[in-house]
């Protein structure tokens, strides 16, 4: 595992230094930069922000967007909103599991994809959809999955 240089995160703490209620924005920025929030980062944030470790862990574990595990190069979110569900999101999910040989929440062996299930992405008129990083792929059928995956 790569070693995280904690002082390289200082610019994030500086950016939010004067803002009230800055814990969540700080965690967002750190996760965007290094991909996840491991214990040593939580400890560092606790020291920098003067917030108890327990509180930081409490926040991280409460919100589903925060993760303490490293993620693959790309994150696939399979939308499980109502419209997608009604239009066959489960078939899409199963096909992805087959193609990538992983379960929900896992990362492929080559570290390329992490697959998650997401809440409604609000692109219901294109249901069923998946979001890879920030790109939405819509009007899917299970048969279209391999072609999309191969683009990455």
């Amino acid at each position, binding site marked *: 595992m790569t070693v995280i240089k904690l002082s390289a995160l200082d610019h994030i703490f500086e950016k939010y230094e004067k803002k009230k209620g800055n814990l969540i924005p700080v965690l967002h920025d750190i996760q965007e930069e290094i991909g996840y929030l491991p214990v040593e980062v939580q400890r560092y944030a606790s020291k920098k922000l003067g917030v108890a470790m327990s509180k930081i862990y409490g*926040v991280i574990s409460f919100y589903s967007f925060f993760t303490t595990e490293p993620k693959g190069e790309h994150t696939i979110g399979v939308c499980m909103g*109502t419209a997608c569900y009604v239009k066959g999101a489960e078939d899409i999910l199963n096909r992805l599991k087959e193609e990538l040989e992983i379960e929900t929440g896992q990362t492929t062996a080559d570290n390329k994809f992490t697959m998650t299930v997401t809440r*409604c992405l*609000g692109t219901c008129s294109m249901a069923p959809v998946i979001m890879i990083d920030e790109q939405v792929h819509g009007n899917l059928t299970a048969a279209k999955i391999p072609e999309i995956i191969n683009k990455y």
Partner: protein
Amino acid sequence: MAKKEILICAGTACLSAGAEEIKDRFEEEIKELNLTEDYEIKTVISNTGCIGPCSLGPIAIIKDDSTFYGHLKTENVERIVREHLLEGKIVEDLLTEEDGEKIEDFKEIRFMKKQKRIALRNTGIIDPNKIEEYIERDGYQALKSVLNNLTPLEVIEEIKNSGLRGRGGAGFPTGIKWSFAHQAEGEQKYIICNADEGDPGAFMDRSILEGDPHSIIEAMIIAGYAIGAEQGYVYVRAEYPLAVKNLKIAIRAAENNGYLGSNIYGSDFSFNLEVRVGAGAFVCGEETALIASIEGKRGQPSTKPPYPANSGLWGKPTVINNVETLANIVPIINQGSDWFSSIGTEKSKGTKVFAVAGDVKNTGLVEVPMGTTLREIIFDIAGGIAEDKGFKAAQIGGPSGGTIPKEYLDLQIDYESVKKVGAIVGSGGLVIMDEDNSMVDVARFFLEFTEDESCGKCTPCRVGTKRMLDILEKILEGKGRRQDLDKLEKLGNTIKETSLCGLGQTAPNPVLSTLKYFREEYETLIKQAEEVN
């Protein structure tokens, strides 16, 4: 002079019907006839939706006179360019026919005719990243007239008179909310825009933030002036990266143009706005949980009272308004409360945006006057059920809402009447289901959602939803017993009565309403189970 625009829908339905070829053909023809100086082809598409009437694709709209051409074929493009663009004559025989009549104007086609776009007035029409386009359509004029001509109390009075009620779900009168915060003691007050649009199936707030962010910014400045707040927050869910991006661009542009910051329009009033991004927790749409989240805490709700209007963010008086609610503020100021209150029903004024999805021909956002019937929305605007199957039910209001069966197709949709049949308008998610859907499975889908999103603070919601889900799964696995249905009902009613916040108080609704209208589906499953054993 600005070029005249030809809008071509590039939604997926239109693309698969050949919109790309139509666009190419238009470009060739316009070039050939040397019209490139006068006309510009614009393709319309965003993640939130296309132009809308998918069943008529591919389509083109000549924006200048709003002429609509549907079911376009490449061989017809030449005639439109030559006859319409060059000679100014509408090509009669290419117009869409509905009920035996040729329709010229896009606004007159069945999909648009019953719609009235107030909250969505600019969405899909202007470039959200160009403040000039918003200003051109009277943007920031309402703010100017408020700061120059009205006292905060007069602004509140105007909003009260309009009859506007919160569009996020509860339907609380907006003007009254503002007046509470205005009256509350305190130097420091806050205004928050709730853009934590969590209901699966609802996407109007996302569409407005992505397509018309300035209308929300302008409304928040006006709200700030009315209640005496100089700081605002927009709390956007993390699933909406484009909304966050467009909003940040818009805030910067508003700052650079002097609409945000100190002494706006030369007045004493100053206002600043900040975006806060959620982190994936449905319960944060509940206002006290949302406040906790902005404060950097776990998003757990707290008991009310005290209400946020008296003690909200950091203990200060706070108004929280939903995106769609705020999108109505500027039109009310510009066109007056009398105009607004003339739309809708007696107790539900104005329009409501519905996100129509599921088994219909045209899916997308639909804005209609309150009081429009479900039948008009599904069959006139959304074009009816896909593959011409039978309509079974409409799920309205997401996980807090309920299911409306066939018998109520002529129900006028407003806050009161929807509540009477056991559902809620909620945020306006409207998922249409055809006869192939199992209602027990739909109920399980929603309960699984709320059970997972329950924050765990209060027992009825945390344990109760889990127990209900266990029973539902048992029934679906073919192990149900007759007494299970009574148990579900009893448990559901207890959770409704005893939960701390709106999430728990409404969580049983999808189960209770399907039990009410589709009890035979539950009974069939149980009967089958009994026969096997």
